[in-house]
């Protein structure tokens, strides 16, 4: 039987259909020696065993047999919302097969021991397989083995969020069953975090790396709810070509009292300051270029600069995937024509 839990160091890029794309890429990064937070993957086989062995899949199928709604009709949307709540309840309330739960608990314990912390904060993130269209959920700052097990189940149950139910129904896919992987990885306590595109999306220039950054966790940048700092760095020599330091009002951080993560106001003295030093920027870009080289195509990378560590150890890579936002690359003739009319100095 396929394994349920695999360490990142046991996974390669080609394992996307076994553990999901995100886990496969983190495994590949780990294999290639890039600095990735320690963690493990719960495989698609784990989802499958849970759904089948606990009878949850059968219960969902029963429920859906008497569920009638049209995914293309706006008036039926509330029906999907209701179905989602019911099904997610079924998933989250079911006990995991005992051996699976034990394995996840042991893996978490190992992470805690490695970090010398009793209840290490981890993130549970969804990892769809290669061809997967879905957008599922991630849960941050989870502490304690019970919470981790629950977190994995919640990621699974997110395959039944309203949006996913409707999407599968529209595409004629199996609404009751949609195996994904889950990444469980150590939370990085980030001073700053963001994204990096190893080919400048603005003009398709492969010689320039584009970065966006905000204080705190990278979610604020990914969500698009703040205007992050942005930078353009030359791939060849790390020259910082452009730097736009924005006013950053909000950041995504754990609430010091509740520990729950969410948007908070950035302290006044940090609002207009650059989130990254030149050295940090160059280090992130330098490794970004190496990641791109390793994968062979332009990459869309999530990174973080950890608090309490020195460069270069402070720079961590949380995710990488092929970059999709490159504007359609101009043909060589157009680039030549641009060049001709840009440069009339001769």
């Amino acid at each position, binding site marked *: 039987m396929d394994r349920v839990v695999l360490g990142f160091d046991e996974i390669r890029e080609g394992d996307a259909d076994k553990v999901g794309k995100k886990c496969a890429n983190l495994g590949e990064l780990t294999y290639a020696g890039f600095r990735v937070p320690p963690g493990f993957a719960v495989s698609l086989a784990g989802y499958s065993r849970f759904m089948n062995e606990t009878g949850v899949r059968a219960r969902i199928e029963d429920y859906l047999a008497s569920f009638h709604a049209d995914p293309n009709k706006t008036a039926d949307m509330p029906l999907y919302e209701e179905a989602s709540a019911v099904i997610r309840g079924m998933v989250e309330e079911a006990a995991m097969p005992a051996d699976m739960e034990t394995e996840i608990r042991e893996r978490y314990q190992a992470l805690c021991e490695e970090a010398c912390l009793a209840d290490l904060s981890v993130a549970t993130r969804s990892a769809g397989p290669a061809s997967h269209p879905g957008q599922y959920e991630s849960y941050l700052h989870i502490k304690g083995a019970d919470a981790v097990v629950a977190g994995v189940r919640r990621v699974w149950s997110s395959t039944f969020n309203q949006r996913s139910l409707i999407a599968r129904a529209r595409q004629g896919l199996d609404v009751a069953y949609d195996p994904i992987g889950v990444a469980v990885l150590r939370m990085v306590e980030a001073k700053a975090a963001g994204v990096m595109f190893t080919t400048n999306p603005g003009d398709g*220039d*492969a*010689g320039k790396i584009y970065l966006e950054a905000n204080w705190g966790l990278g979610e604020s940048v990914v969500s698009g709810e703040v205007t992050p700092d942005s930078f353009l760095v030359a791939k*060849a020599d790390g020259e910082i070509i452009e730097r736009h330091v924005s006013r950053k009002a909000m950041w995504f951080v754990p609430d010091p009292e509740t520990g729950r993560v969410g948007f908070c106001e950035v302290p006044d003295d940090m609002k207009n300051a650059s989130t990254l030093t030149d050295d940090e920027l160059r280090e992130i870009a330098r490794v970004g270029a190496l990641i791109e080289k390793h994968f062979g195509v332009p990459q869309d990378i999530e990174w973080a600069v950890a608090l309490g560590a020195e460069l270069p150890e402070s720079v961590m890579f949380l995710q990488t995937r092929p970059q999709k936002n490159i504007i359609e690359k101009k043909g*060589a*003739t157009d*680039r*030549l*024509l*641009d*060049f*001709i*009319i840009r440069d*009339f100095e*001769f």
Partner: protein
Amino acid sequence: MTAVYGVSLFEFDESDFTEDQVWFCDVTHGSPPWKPLYFCHGWCWPGYQTIQTGYESLQVPTSRGWQIRAKDGYPYPSVMLTTEEETKQRAPIFRERIRPYIENFNALWDEAKMDLKKNYEDLRKKYGLETYESIKDLPDYRLYDMLEEYLILHRKQWVVHMEYFFVPVYYLFGLFQNMSKKVLGLDSGDPLFSKAMAGFDSSAFRFNERIWDLGKQAVESGLEGVFTADEDDDAVLRHLEGSDAGRAWLEGFRQFLDEYGWRCERMSDWATPSWLEKPALAIPGIRMAIATKGVSSIKENRELAERERGEAEKELLEKVPADQRDWYEVLMKCAQNACYFSEDHTYYTELYTSAMGRWIFKEIGRRFAEAGTIDDSEDVFFLLMNDIYKAIIPMGRVKLQGKVAARKKEWEGYLTVQPEMLLGNPELMGLVVQKDPVLSAAFALPNVRPELAADLYGGGSAPGVVEGVARVIMTEKDLGELRKGEILVAPGTSAQWMPAFEIAGGIITDGGGALSHAVIVAREYRLPAVTGTHEATSKIKTGDRVKVDGDLGIVFILK
């Protein structure tokens, strides 16, 4: 300054000598000075005017084209630079208008050249002229009609040649030249640059191949002795008529002339006979072919050149920063197209139109002489179009001997003049060449490097080093004097000089830049060449021992 041949169109006046103007002598084409008819109506007026329309129709951002003046019988073009404001306005239009020449040059040129060739043939057909001699049967008024139609076609040829192709194609070459200098620090004389620009077949080389085929046939038919026994080219043709083998050879020769005979002794000049009119003009080339036993080196050289080109392209591209490689490669292809165009076009443009003009004007001259309008048929080339219109129909009313005498005297004076290379502010030349990539491709200033202590410095070159005995040849008429292995020293070369490249050891010229005939053909024949020296023919004497260093673009006179 007096107007050359009294034509105000090309007359210098005081406003032409301000600080912001420089005039350069087009010796490449204009030496020795043309007789008035071709000077005015064949070359200067339609030729330079269509260069100007080329700059305007393309909206070249940095230049509005070349205006033209004349002095001492030589044409002096000058570049009209744009203002900054004009540059900005023209750039986006230029961007779109130059595009087809980047994306689609070959199809455009193939269509244009076939159209021109058909136009020449159609004009002959329209007047029922099946043989070269049949033009004599046209009534005067029909000959006049044909003249007018020819002049329209002649102008169309210039529009296609200059406006549609020369300006955009040479622009892209010049840009590649400038970019290679800027991005890679590479001069166009650099062997690597040269190698990337060689290995292209074209009509000019096919012409040479046919000449060599004729030479080979002559050798194989045992006719070698006929060519070597008599130095008189006409006598050779007469002797050939005297044997079966000779007559068989002449049959092949006539077929060759049908296709390639539409060319004058001088590439662009109505005042020199065409090969159809005077087949003996082909004999010096055939003698050269026979001297090599009809074994042409072009195929072997081209194979080598093609192989070296592949390697040079790779080497060049590796030197270019990765993010600029794609457009540099496209531009390199454009530059290679220019090298091909430079040798392919002459057959369809200058050569054909000049020979047709020669045919018509010579016939007009013959009738004028018969009617007493001029004394000798060749005097027609001292007339201008106004004179011809005045006298042509009906014939015999007008006497033009006075015009002929005055202009002939003026022309003979020009033959003795050593033209000044630059007029106006010479310091501007560097800037002008920079701003006008077309000019930088077509013309070059000697690149003087005193530290090399050479006797001559070139503006263009083809790689390789050779030492040998110099043979100074001022016009194609004397090409037959060249012996195998000699270093050819000439004002410039053109399509008519092609056979010389099969036997010369090296080439040195007064005029010519990186896209000049001498440079391009020397590359294909893998001969060392130094061009654009300005003074090779005045400094070097036949018999001097010279060293041609095409790698450095310099010449040493060893005596």
